[in-house]
């Protein structure tokens, strides 16, 4: 067997069930109570207004049948917590909407007395993985956007100190390591310190 991560304990979690009063919501609330998750049902509005609210729950279950974008105080796909779609109709349009909303997994209606613990675990992991990937992507995009700064700083060192391109780049790397900066931040610092004007002067 494969070694697994410890199962998260949902015992300190708060859940919101965004669904009108309905047996599906009742069955879900009952399962959540057994699992040790404090849960509340609400419809049609979430009981907090902005993304950063301290009252926001740890997980949201939302109705994929009757839900709509305006219920959420964030753009579709930008929820700051795991979301689980409660799917009754498997009409492709509704599933498409639930996916666009950022469902990490789903539970099928009618909801009986199983399925919720597994959904919580899957949504929790999927959300964490998505967060990590998004953070990595943002870092890579930032890096890519700052390639020009690295090129300019290398050029500056070449001209200013009469170095080859390789040596200039190595010096930038050394500076970054010594100052514990990223290469991009070291490039920015170099440009700020000597100023772009230096390049022009030396060239003149």
């Amino acid at each position, binding site marked *: *067997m494969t*070694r*697994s991560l*410890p*199962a998260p*304990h*949902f*015992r300190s979690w708060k859940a919101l069930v965004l669904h009108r009063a309905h047996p599906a919501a009742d069955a879900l609330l*009952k*399962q959540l*109570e*057994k*699992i*040790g998750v404090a849960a509340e049902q609400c419809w049609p509005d979430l009981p907090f207004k902005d993304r950063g609210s301290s009252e926001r729950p740890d997980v949201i279950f939302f109705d994929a049948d009757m839900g709509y974008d305006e219920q959420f105080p964030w753009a579709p796909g930008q929820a700051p917590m795991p979301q689980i779609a409660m799917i009754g109709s498997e009409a492709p349009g509704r599933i498409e909407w639930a996916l666009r909303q950022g469902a990490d997994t789903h539970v099928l209606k009618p909801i*009986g*007395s*199983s399925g919720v*613990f597994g959904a919580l675990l899957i949504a929790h992991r999927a959300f964490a993985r998505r967060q990590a990937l998004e953070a990595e992507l943002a870092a890579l995009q930032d890096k890519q956007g700052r390639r020009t700064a690295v090129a300019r700083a290398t050029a500056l060192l070449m001209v200013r100190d009469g170095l080859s391109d390789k040596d200039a780049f190595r010096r930038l790397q050394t500076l970054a390591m010594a100052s514990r900066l990223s290469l991009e931040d070291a490039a920015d610092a170099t440009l700020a310190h000597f100023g772009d004007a230096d390049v022009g002067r030396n060239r003149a």
Partner: protein
Amino acid sequence: MERIFDLGVLYSTEGSYAALGQQGLAGARMAIDEVNASPDYGFSFRAEIADPRGRFDRYGPMCDALVRPGRVRHVIGGITSWSRKEVIPVVEKHEARLWYACPYEGFEANDHVFYLGACPNQHVLPLFAHAFETFGTRPFLVGSNYIWGWENNRIARELVTHGGGEVAGERCLPLGDTDVGRLIAEIRETRPDFVLNNLIGPSSYAFLRAYHALAQEDAAFLPERRPVLSCNLTELELDIVGPAAIGHIATASYFDSIPTGENRAFLGRVAARLGPKQRVSAFFVGAYSAVLLLAEAIRRTGTDDPAAIDAVAAECRPILPMGPLALDPLTKHAVLTPWLGRAVPGGRFELLEETGRIVMPDPYMASPLQDVRGLGDPTSRASQAPRLRLVQ
């Protein structure tokens, strides 16, 4: 005329876990006969017995055949989790109820099932709390390649991490495999503080015998130094394993050595009915408990309608060999007293003194682990000499 209620009984008396199925069947039948002979209930049960003979794919169709005609609305049975998972969709479909009476790995609380056996916070948790205080926090985990072994070992790893300990090693054997040589060699090499045994049936028996042989060669592996701890070793299996089991520890919600008047009277009735050699384990008493709880609920409501039984089951307190039984209305799991026993000659378990406290069921392990005695503060453990204090 007295009313008669049909009751499905679904246990395998053949196959790899036949001994446990026979216990369940014997316990259910004894309770049915006691209800039928008693003037207190005002009704009789008629048992409809089905035997899947150890084939898990037979449980669903056999349960269906029991409940589909509509007379049988309650089925007592199932030993393995596979069989339970096969039966659940059937009882859901026909609005019947399953009474499952075995220790299991938890993470389930189905509205169509009554759970009479221990869930992990009632077996592996108390076992670990004791082991951490007595033997140390470095176990070796063994189990069969089956959900029982996987899940109990996963919980064990979590407890070890929580308690600041270390897993000395972990090994799973295929179901039924008795080739334990490599396992024993690894344990010999890693010298853990204790061994958690989640092996099933023949694998478990082979392992205990081989571990005993190891202890004959190397006294460091005698049970008083490095015991094997099990969540599913019963009285009847002590007979099968023989002297190799002596000194090792198990947990159960019932041991036949529980020193209550009810238990002595109960064992007397078992002996009168089935002979003095009949073994009684938690599997026997689990099925017996299920029938008596259902009988009490029917007595109160006058019907076996599942919704009516659901509504009153948690208020019933049938007197059982280990004391009054209570049911948690939210999870429909039994409130149990986990006992720890040490195997002694004569096929019995001697109770360890520091056990025997009532534990609410928590099938999803939703309570903080700090609430478990012995697991709260890793520095409080006494990992030196074993100190087994025994009930007189």
